[in-house]
């Protein structure tokens, strides 16, 4: 009995969705937010904040789906191949979307993607052990200049969000370190704490615990302004090095999605993320939920492309 009921419900849902007018967007079916990273990461957590308030503001469910195959390309291709109806969106930072596209052949062009809402900005941060010789950025750079390549820095994956600022900083401040790629922030943290490397590069959420108990010290941030999570840490720009390379977690639609649907999504998602409950969840998870609309996030997207092109051109 129960089984027939379920069968009926599902067939009704299918036929019902097809028959509805477009005016009902986005309430006809759940929105799928495809992430190129594994569940449990920072992108995942930020997306789930939206997902947990979606019922109220988007009139539908938002399912976060993690597909981390092929360095994120599987997720991007899935969104690209899905019907351009606004129900399948991409949420990512710039790594899989831009860096990979600039490095190798991918199935898409960068201007195929339209940023809908930037959920948050993420600041790359350099850090070291508090009991080591590198307690501020100036000393670190001086020591690195004194013996090029002797200081090792663990930085997450190759050409990832914390690695690119390190490359840029070395060019601007003219020093050289031994870059050690790791599987991500966790391993970079382990290497610094265990003394395997002298310093590390990651994002604030990775080192929050170590900063809290005083075992780590944050050297500098690669953003335009200081961040709430690390109020005492200077930016590189303050220190006189023009290295501003923040990352972002942004929701993208394919450009074939009708413009009016994008506008609806922008409006609803902005409203959802600005809601008190989303802001509260952001505060609880240490995610600085500061949504930017289509125009501002498009600007951030294009600036990032220009910056990355410049850096990657220097290393190949």
């Amino acid at each position: 009995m129960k089984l027939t009921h379920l069968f009926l419900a599902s067939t009704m849902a299918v036929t019902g969705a097809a028959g509805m007018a477009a005016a009902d967007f986005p309430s006809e079916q759940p929105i799928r937010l495809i992430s190129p990273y594994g569940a449990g990461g920072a992108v995942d957590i930020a997306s789930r904040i939206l997902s947990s308030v979606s019922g109220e503001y988007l009139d539908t469910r938002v399912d976060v789906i993690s597909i981390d195959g092929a360095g994120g390309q599987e997720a991007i291709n899935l969104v690209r191949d899905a019907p351009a109806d606004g129900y399948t969106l991409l949420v990512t930072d710039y790594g899989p979307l831009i860096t990979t596209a600039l490095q190798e052949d991918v199935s898409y062009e960068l201007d195929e993607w339209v940023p809908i809402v930037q959920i948050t900005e993420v600041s790359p941060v350099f850090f070291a052990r508090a009991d080591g010789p590198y307690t501020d950025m100036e000393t670190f750079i001086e020591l690195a200049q004194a013996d090029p390549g002797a200081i090792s820095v663990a930085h997450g994956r190759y050409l990832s969000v914390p690695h690119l600022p390190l490359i840029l900083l070395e060019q601007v401040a003219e020093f050289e370190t031994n870059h050690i790629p790791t599987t991500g922030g966790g391993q970079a943290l382990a290497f610094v704490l265990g003394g395997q490397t002298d310093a590390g590069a990651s994002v604030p959420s990775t080192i929050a615990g170590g900063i809290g108990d005083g075992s780590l010290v944050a050297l500098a941030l690669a953003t335009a302004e200081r961040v709430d999570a690390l109020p005492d840490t200077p930016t590189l720009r303050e220190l006189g090095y023009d290295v501003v390379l923040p990352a972002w977690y942004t929701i993208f639609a394919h450009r074939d999605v009708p413009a009016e649907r994008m506008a609806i999504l922008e409006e609803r998602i902005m409203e959802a993320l600005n809601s008190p409950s989303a802001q509260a969840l952001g505060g609880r998870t240490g995610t600085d939920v500061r949504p930017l609309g289509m125009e501002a996030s498009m600007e951030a997207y294009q600036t990032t492309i220009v910056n990355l092109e410049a850096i990657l051109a220097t290393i190949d």
Partner: protein
Amino acid sequence: MRRFSLAAWRYRELGFGVLALLLAVIGLLHVRYGNWRPGPGGGNWLVPMVAYWVLLAAGLSILLGRLRAAWQPDTERLHVPLVAVAGGLLWGVAFFLAVRHIGIAVSVTVLVGAAMLALSPRDALRPGLIAMVALAAGAVFWLLFTRVAPILVANPILF
């Protein structure tokens, strides 16, 4: 009924040794002449190269029979009829395509039922039981993969 004698087993082992050697040599040639992007820490061909050398050594030691003294000849014989290999793989492909394009409940019931019929002994065929088990499997699969752990399926024709 063909029996595999000890000699036949040795033959299989030698065959495997030759395969391993071939693979290792091709791999080493590829490491030497292939197009590898340079990278730090020994390059990204380092570990593949080590693996090929190990494979080469293992293949050689199988062929030369250096370890023969330590061999305890296997007494079990594995006979896999080709029809099972081809049938199993084809069934898998058909099953997956059917689930994606026709729908979970229908494909599972039909294909699982068909496989059960094919594998049942002729003298103990129980079509009624098979139909019941296949239907139950269809229902459970449907629940599992549309409700509990939904899989993304391109719009199926049925369900």
